[in-house]
């Protein structure tokens, strides 16, 4: 790719990017969120059109009008959000994209594809049952289907966008092996990530992107995680490290006992969870997405009614499924889905800040708009929200500033318990640091903090105690510095007790 430029309203996502990947290599594309990695890959796969620049494939200039053109030319992508038809079987999904074999005929017979799926699965260590329907598969398995799909199309260039975000550490290892094998056949694998150790583990070369520009392309063997980090961020980073503190013998502020709750599909998603968080303590809940973390957070916040069990704050039982009661009891909630649940996107910043307290601050049925704006201006100042003013629509704020709005709102009043669900997902490094500092500040003020996150680095940096959530159940991590133990528990296994001697 040469001189690729892509502009979106207000931002230049890619600014004269030169990128080159050879056959037979795993090439990592490293950069922070918002550095332009995904945009670049979307241009390469025909989803976006570059405003300037040229793409060459094996020396030939190409112009992809649609993802289909790219696939036909052998450029396939495994998206962060899988492009699979949930109710189809694995085989049907593969036939769907096929234009050479079974897919060209009018009459199709998915059974004929099934043997091919098995064969490919064996060759690349990607076992999946071709009869299985996608919704029955785990996220890791669905990813295998996506990769199989690309191989079934005989992809010459395979692009993976943050593929390990949904995997356990062990599944990631297996994926790396598979990717190396695919590359060893002369295909090109482009691995997009912002995680240094993964890039180090899997790639032959690394191209670092920052603010839409290529900073450097280096051989992985010549780079250290530190050198890559400073290339990626532009300055050296100090990791937040939390030291274990003595919390004394204080009793639990938040106490959850044998709580059950149903997921969106009606099946139990939270299965008999008991948990206690003391004042000033940060309990981190680790786990692969979709193991009931969101449901647990919503249940404690009162958004989702529990079907069984008790939630207590300072010993007082909370009415189940009552957001107002939870808030009045001192529970504050930073939800996972900022734009959809955290704020009302079409309301102004000032109104969003007032969503929790309008009852107290309004005059009968009337809102006190002037006071509201004054409060908003104060919050903008205090929480360093970068916004044109209190009247700006929440939808127009960036992720980091949106999160600050949510935090500013939730930090009001007497905050006894803070539930933060994936509070830094999709934020850039400086916003992440800000959010982390707020979480630490809350704990410092004696709030019981429950942090639910899929980001292991975040969990390791902030926790006083780690629990792992797997299929709706919790297990306590004994050694909170052992990534291995956390990883095993994330996969639903209990580490053997043999090495305890």
């Amino acid at each position, binding site marked *: 790719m040469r001189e690729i430029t892509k502009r*979106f309203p207000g931002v230049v996502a890619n600014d004269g990017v030169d990128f080159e990947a050879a056959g037979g290599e795993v090439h990592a594309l490293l950069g922070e969120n918002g550095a332009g990695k995904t945009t670049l890959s979307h241009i390469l796969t025909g989803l*976006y059109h570059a405003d300037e620049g040229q793409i060459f494939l094996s020396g030939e200039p190409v112009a992809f009008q649609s993802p*289909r053109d790219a696939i036909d030319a052998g450029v396939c992508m495994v998206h962060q959000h899988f*492009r699979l*038809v*949930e109710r*189809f079987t694995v085989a049907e999904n593969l036939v*769907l*994209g096929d234009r050479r074999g079974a897919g060209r005929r009018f009459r*199709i017979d998915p059974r004929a594809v099934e043997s091919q799926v098995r064969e490919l699965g064996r060759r690349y260590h990607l076992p999946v049952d071709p009869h299985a329907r996608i919704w029955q598969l785990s996220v890791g398995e669905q990813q295998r289907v996506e990769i199989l799909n690309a191989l079934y199309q005989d992809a010459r260039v395979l692009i993976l966008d943050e593929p390990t975000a949904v995997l356990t550490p062990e599944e990631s290892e297996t994926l790396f092996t598979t990717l190396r094998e695919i590359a060893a056949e002369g295909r090109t694998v482009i691995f997009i990530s912002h995680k240094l150790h993964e890039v180090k583990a899997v790639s032959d070369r690394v191209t670092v992107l920052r603010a839409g520009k290529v900073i450097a392309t280096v051989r992985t063997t010549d780079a250290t995680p530190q050198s890559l980090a400073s290339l990626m961020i532009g300055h050296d980073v100090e990791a937040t490290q939390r030291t274990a503190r003595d919390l004394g013998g204080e009793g639990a502020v938040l106490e959850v006992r044998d709580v059950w709750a149903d997921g969106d599909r009606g099946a139990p998603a939270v299965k008999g969870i008991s948990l206690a968080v003391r004042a000033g303590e940060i309990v981190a809940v680790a786990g692969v997405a979709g193991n009931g973390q969101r449901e647990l957070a919503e249940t404690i916040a009162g958004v989702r009614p529990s079907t069984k069990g008790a939630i207590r704050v300072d010993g007082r039982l909370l009415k189940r499924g009552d957001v107002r009661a939870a808030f009045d009891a001192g529970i504050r909630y930073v939800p996972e889905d900022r734009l959809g649940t955290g704020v009302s996107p079409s309301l102004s910043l000032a109104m969003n800040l007032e969503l929790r307290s309008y009852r107290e601050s309004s005059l009968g049925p009337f809102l006190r708009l002037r006071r509201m704006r004054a409060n908003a201006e104060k919050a903008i100042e205090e929480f360093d929200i970068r916004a044109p003013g209190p009247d700006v629509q929440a939808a127009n704020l960036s992720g980091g500033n949106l999160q600050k709005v949510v935090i500013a709102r939730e930090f009001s009043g007497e905050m006894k318990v803070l539930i933060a669900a994936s509070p830094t997902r999709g934020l850039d490094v400086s916003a992440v640091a800000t959010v982390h500092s707020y979480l630490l500040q809350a704990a410092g003020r004696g709030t019981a903090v429950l942090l639910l996150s899929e980001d292991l680095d975040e969990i390791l940096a902030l926790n006083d105690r780690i629990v792992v959530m797997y299929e709706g159940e919790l297990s306590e991590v004994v050694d909170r510095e052992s990534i291995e133990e956390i990883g095993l528990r994330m996969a639903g296994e209990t580490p053997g007790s043999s090495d305890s001697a």
Partner: protein
Amino acid sequence: MNDSLLVVLIASGVAYGTPLLFAALGELLAERSGVLNLGVEGMMLVGAVMGFWTVERVHANTGLTLALAIVIAAVAGTVMATIHAFLVITLRANQIVSGLALTIFAGAVGLSSYLGNNLKLADVPAAHSFHTLLPKGMQNLPVVGPILFGQNILVYASWLCVIAVGLYLSRTRPGLNVRAVGESPAAADTMGINVTAYRYAHTLAGGAFAGIAGATITLAITPQWVDGITYGAGWIAIALVIFAFWRPELCLVGAYFFGALQALAPQLQARNISLGPTVLWSNSLPYVMTVLVLVVVSSGTARRRLGAPAALGVAYVREEH
């Protein structure tokens, strides 16, 4: 034996159920592509009036005239469906609102009555109509005679359509594609399937089926035209698609069941059997169905539980910025 209530009910259930079956098959095709069309009633009424108009105006032999009438009715239904398709696929209007508007615009006291009255079709018997096809000897066979052999050609055609639609959806490339479009347009788009084209094609096909369904009523069941002659059959057809879990073979069973219900009241009356106010509930059935359909289609949870196409009712926008 062939006069027994059960045999008569099943036989007339098949006859009365045929327009329901045609309309339901059409709606099923549209919904499988992700387009909900609540305009079935309106499309059927326009098909009914245009089919009837054809047999009144064309002076050819019976077979040719009827074939032409069916084609005209299908075309009329397709034209109506085009309005809906343009509104909801191209302009991405709300599918429920657009479908309701179509039924109001085209339905009783709307376009179809204007056409019928203006073309002076009221109070005239059909010049040609569909009759039983097979020899009398076969029709007189016990039980199977009236049920299977005492039907007109449209009934047999509808059976072929059920088989064709079933095979199309489960065994063919375009069938797989249309299911993908209805389930996950984003995935389909990535795979190079033209979401817009598939949705248009199946919505229009749905209109053609609804038009034929309307003509089946005015040319085979009650060979005449009166305003609003479908009496809510379009709504029953939409409900049928839901009860049949979007599967053509179950549409057939359901259509004949509702057909038999329609025949029940007059048959009981003719035999002097009293089952309370049968007429009341069989006449109110279409309205009950309408309410039911609206509740189900507007509740996301209910739809998911029943197994509706995941993208039903949702316009597709490619996420290009």
